[in-house]
């Protein structure tokens, strides 16, 4: 039984210099067999295990992770959470996640520092204005809060933005989702890991999957660096490495893996209390609780698994940032990194069964998976437990690339993917 985190436990542990905190999760050796195995110990994988145990009563499950939990894209994103997507299918999916975010800290007894500081998307040309207004209407029809702001209202909401008509891409307005915001990404992985572990889920770190053993039309288990582990149900949540795992069973996926970069500045006093994204110039910025500016850059155009990214992509983003926020001109950038994102041709994810019985894939989140973490885990757990998709992820199946029923969020979503 885990000790509950509270003001009293904080006080009690302060008396012993915080040296006697209970471990948040165990470090078990893999058992011989599990009811289900989740490959990938990022936010989505851990959330899947958590909801399998909590809502579907599957306790004998394992999460196997090549490195350490939350060390991949979960710890590399810019932590933005929003649900203002254009199409009904996406709106349903992302708003389902946003609703779980709103109660997540209480559900996990773990402070994920979810902060509904609002996300503003800027328009820089007439087409942007039309697209963003259309999206606001679509959002409201789907019950998602969204408002259109004109240039003066943008300036009022975020005074440091340069709204001069003389800049190369002037701000013609923007949309605002007030329920959107940010969360502490590491805490999401740790909170889900702690919660899943408490219900008996084995989280096995430093355990790389080397192969998937098939039997008949199903699955027998996985070959790992810690030996063979039996299981008839495997959920794959490996983001940029989804094609690598799919290659083990000759499954074809429509994914391309590319480095997506982010960077943070030196910490400064509070200067921007919201998240501002700009599709046309591809720059988005927010400020972390530590005071760093968190800046999201774009993806490289070529396939790569290097977790680095090109310098010219960062340069392009920072040029746009400087034009929009001249006040940042003397800020120093502290750290830059890349994460490998798996991008679908329609910029929508795959949460799906496959033609192999007992093998499920949750991938293709591309550049925007963090916001969906709780919803993705919940719906993927439902899909694995019932061997049938939930109605919210039914449209996000692999077969849509054969049938042509794409969920085309390229350009339709609030930011370029």
């Amino acid at each position: 039984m885990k000790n509950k985190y509270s003001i009293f436990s904080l006080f009690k542990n302060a008396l012993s210099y915080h040296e006697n905190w209970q471990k948040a999760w165990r470090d078990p050796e893999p058992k011989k067999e599990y009811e289900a195995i989740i490959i990938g110990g990022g936010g989505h994988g851990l959330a899947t295990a958590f909801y399998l145990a909590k809502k579907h009563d599957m306790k004998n499950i394992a999460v196997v992770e090549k490195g350490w939990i939350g060390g991949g894209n979960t710890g590399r994103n810019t932590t933005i959470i929003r649900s203002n997507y254009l199409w009904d299918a996406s709106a349903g999916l992302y708003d389902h996640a946003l609703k779980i975010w709103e109660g997540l800290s209480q559900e996990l007894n773990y402070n994920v520092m979810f902060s509904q500081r609002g996300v503003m998307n800027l328009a820089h040309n007439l087409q942007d204005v039309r697209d963003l207004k259309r999206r606001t209407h679509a959002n409201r029809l789907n019950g998602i809060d969204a408002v259109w702001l004109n240039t003066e209202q943008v300036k009022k909401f975020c005074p440091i933005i340069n709204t001069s008509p003389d800049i190369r891409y002037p701000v013609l307005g923007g949309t605002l989702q007030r329920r959107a915001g940010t969360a502490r990404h590491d805490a999401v992985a740790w909170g889900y890991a702690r919660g899943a572990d408490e219900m008996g889920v084995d989280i096995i770190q430093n355990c790389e999957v080397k192969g998937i053993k098939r039997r008949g039309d199903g699955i027998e288990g996985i070959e790992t660096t810690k030996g063979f582990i039996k299981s008839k149900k495997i959920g794959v949540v490996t983001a940029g490495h989804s094609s690598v795992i799919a290659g083990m069973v000759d499954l074809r996926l429509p994914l391309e893996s590319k480095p997506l970069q982010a960077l943070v500045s030196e910490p400064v006093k509070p200067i921007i209390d919201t998240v501002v994204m700009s599709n046309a110039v591809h720059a988005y910025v927010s400020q972390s609780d530590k005071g760093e500016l968190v800046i999201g850059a774009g993806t490289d155009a070529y396939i790569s698994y290097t977790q680095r990214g090109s310098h010219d992509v960062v340069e392009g983003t920072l040029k746009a940032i400087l034009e929009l926020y001249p006040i940042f001109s003397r800020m120093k950038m502290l750290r830059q990194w890349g994460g490998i994102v798996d991008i679908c041709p329609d910029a929508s994810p795959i949460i799906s069964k496959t033609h192999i019985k007992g093998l499920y894939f949750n991938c293709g989140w591309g550049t925007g998976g963090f916001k969906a973490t709780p919803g993705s885990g919940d719906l993927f757990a439902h899909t694995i437990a019932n061997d049938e998709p939930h109605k919210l992820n039914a449209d996000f199946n692999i077969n849509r690339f054969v049938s042509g029923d794409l969920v085309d969020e390229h350009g339709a979503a609030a930011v370029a993917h």
Partner: protein
Amino acid sequence: MFLINCPYCGERDQSEFSAGGEAHIVRPKQPTELSDDQWAEFLFMRKNIKGVQLERWNHAHGCRKWFNMARDTSNDKIHAVYKMGEKPPSK
């Protein structure tokens, strides 16, 4: 970020080039006779290799010519550059 040895112009910065994705995907000769599965395969399904991948590049800010490359996607090292129509290196 890396340097690419364009077969026409010589070594240039990668930012001068556009990536064209996986190479040697043959356009169907009889598009009208393709099944949905075959279309999906041609249009969408990709190997997305972690390791040496054969891919197309275009020297967009240079000679604007297309060519092929064998590049290791796990470390961005380029093993070979070859012109369109040429066979990929054997290893």
